[in-house]
């Protein structure tokens, strides 16, 4: 059974200019121990999905349709009290801005212990501290820095502390939202390697959210490419990136400079993503698409299977 199933998910934000449909008709599922990368540009709805999986949408945001099923439980309709028990216990999250995700006036150890003791009320301080020490060893943080305050840590150390916190309760699913964006390449590389290693060690399912396709390609088994609130292409990483079918994915791949292989000319995507307030009749990419036809503007594109496990939301593939 799939660890996580997302069916026809739609999420809207109430704004001054009307309902903004940040996520529209998204389907995917994740098997235990696998990792799914969600890629797309800023504003494409990937972070919103991450927040919805934690039940942490901002007050003006809500799930307008579809459902999220985690381990057989439909969490999109759980009451707040039940949801609270699911959080961190079953789904943990590594935040985009790890720099600011630690409370500046509390010690690191206390913050991790708090996560443990909230869900294991019978665990006393000594046992919790022991667990934190174990986690520190796991992510390669020095034990003598256990009781520091966040401002005494470097960026990489903070991110490791957050990873330690995420692993504290052996969750089945971890959502990593741009976990390395603010870090330097070398630290980023170390953290990504550790993440991969810990994932296979503990058989955790990971949703990895990033705008950087090279990182996702490196870390994830499966990829979902998002554009303007919709999933437009999904499948195994190799397939999606090296046999891309959707024009957006193709454009994304060809606008990305790489280190290896022949030096090819980058092809920038012209134009800007559409405004998501109001309804969009046809394909959302058609304004920027080289394959644009008259019917693209009018009809919603359909999902097509183009390979084993490889699907694409385009009528012309």
């Amino acid at each position, binding site marked *: 059974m799939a660890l996580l199933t997302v069916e026809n998910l739609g999420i809207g934000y109430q704004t001054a200019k009307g309902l903004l449909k940040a996520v529209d008709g998204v389907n995917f599922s994740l098997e235990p121990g696998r990792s799914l990368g969600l890629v797309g*540009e*800023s504003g494409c709805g990937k972070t919103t999905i991450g927040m919805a999986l934690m039940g942490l949408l901002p007050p003006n945001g809500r799930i307008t349709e579809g459902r999220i099923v985690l381990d057989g439980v439909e969490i999109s309709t759980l009451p707040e009290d039940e949801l609270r028990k699911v959080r961190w216990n079953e789904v943990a999250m590594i935040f985009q801005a790890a720099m600011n995700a630690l409370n500046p006036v509390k010690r690191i150890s206390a913050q991790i212990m708090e996560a443990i003791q909230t869900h294991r009320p019978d665990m006393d301080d000594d046992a919790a501290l022991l667990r934190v020490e174990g986690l520190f060893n796991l992510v390669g943080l020095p034990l003598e820095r256990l009781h520091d305050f966040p401002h005494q840590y470097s960026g990489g150390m903070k991110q490791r502390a957050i990873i330690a916190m995420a692993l504290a309760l052996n969750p089945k699913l971890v959502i990593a939202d741009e976990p390395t964006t603010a870090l*330097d*390449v*070398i630290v*980023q*590389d*170390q953290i*990504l390697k550790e993440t991969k290693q810990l994932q296979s060690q503990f058989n955790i399912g990971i949703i990895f959210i990033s*705008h*950087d*396709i*090279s*990182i996702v*390609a*490196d870390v994830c088994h499966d990829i979902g490419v998002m554009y303007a609130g919709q999933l437009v292409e999904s499948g195994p*990483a*190799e397939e999606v*990136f*090296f046999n891309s079918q959707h024009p957006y994915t193709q*454009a*994304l791949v060809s*606008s*990305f*400079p*790489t*280190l*290896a*292989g022949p*030096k090819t000319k*980058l*092809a*920038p*995507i*012209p134009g*800007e993503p559409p405004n998501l307030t109001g309804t969009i009749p046809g394909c959302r990419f058609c304004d920027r698409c080289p394959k644009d036809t008259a019917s693209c503007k009018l009809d919603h594109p359909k999902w097509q299977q183009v390979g084993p496990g490889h699907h694409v939301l385009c009528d012309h593939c």
Partner: protein
Amino acid sequence: MSESREHKTILQLEQVSRFYRTRGNVFRGGGRLVVALNKINLSLRQGEIFGLVGESGSGKTTCGRLIVRLEEPDEGRITLGGEDITHLKGKKLKDYRRQVQMVFQDPYQSLNPQVTIADSVAEPLITNKLGDPLDHLERVLKVLDTAGLSPSEDYVYRFPHQLSGGQRQRVAIARAIVLEPSLLVADEPTSMLDASYSAQIFEILQGVRDNMGATIMFITHSMASARYLCDRIGVIYRGHLVEQGPAEQVINAPQHPYTKALIDATPKFGRSSEVPTYGTLLAAERPATSSAGCPFFRRCALAERLLCAGTYPPWHDVAPEQVALCHLLQDAAPAASSG
């Protein structure tokens, strides 16, 4: 570097150093001295795009700021077209800045939120008293078109918050090229932008070089971007330039252990088998024994304790036009360097 272009040096940094003093206290006097740049030697050739690659805090931004003279070097000399500009002041500095412009990293911060696009882009024209307001408008419209914002009439009278990040960065480029400078410093112009926008920015920068003949110094943390855009690359580590050479050569055959480590760490986008792994980075930093040694000693897996910890490494001509700062390398055969 194409053969037809002559190697004429336009900008030269000689032994340039920059120190920062951390905030001290009245009773104890000044604080600690932090070296942002240490005796940097660089020369930019007319019409090339030079990539300065390094991690955050490596001093690459400081280097850019020294060149446009937002800061003054503490030691050394900077020359542009043979003229010493290290300590220019007043009118001369203003004249210098007509030739040297800069594009900043964060397009959300580099445009004044209270000033319209037209006024932002026209600012260099106004401060240099070039023409009347009508001329300004005309040139602004033209340069916005060049920077890929067309039709430019739609953009001139807007505030920055009405534009996307990619559009703002193009406005910033327009402002930098409106005076047609001979040297443009681009400080991580794409690091805050999405991939599709950065490809657009690269295209515009290439256009600026090709059509306006400007020399560009491209500051970046990404080896891949540097490879794509630059003719030559310099790698900078904690204020020390450690390797320099033609872009393809530095990336395909890196010599300095730090360059190798950077290439190791860069995601290869599925083609990892094509690039060898060098493994020159230590898992944990080793304690430094003295401050005189190689700057990379504490993290270098190859370092020899006696040699590398004690003395500052020499420059080696490792390949034609490629130099690296390391004890463990040797000069390539002279025959190679002449070819």
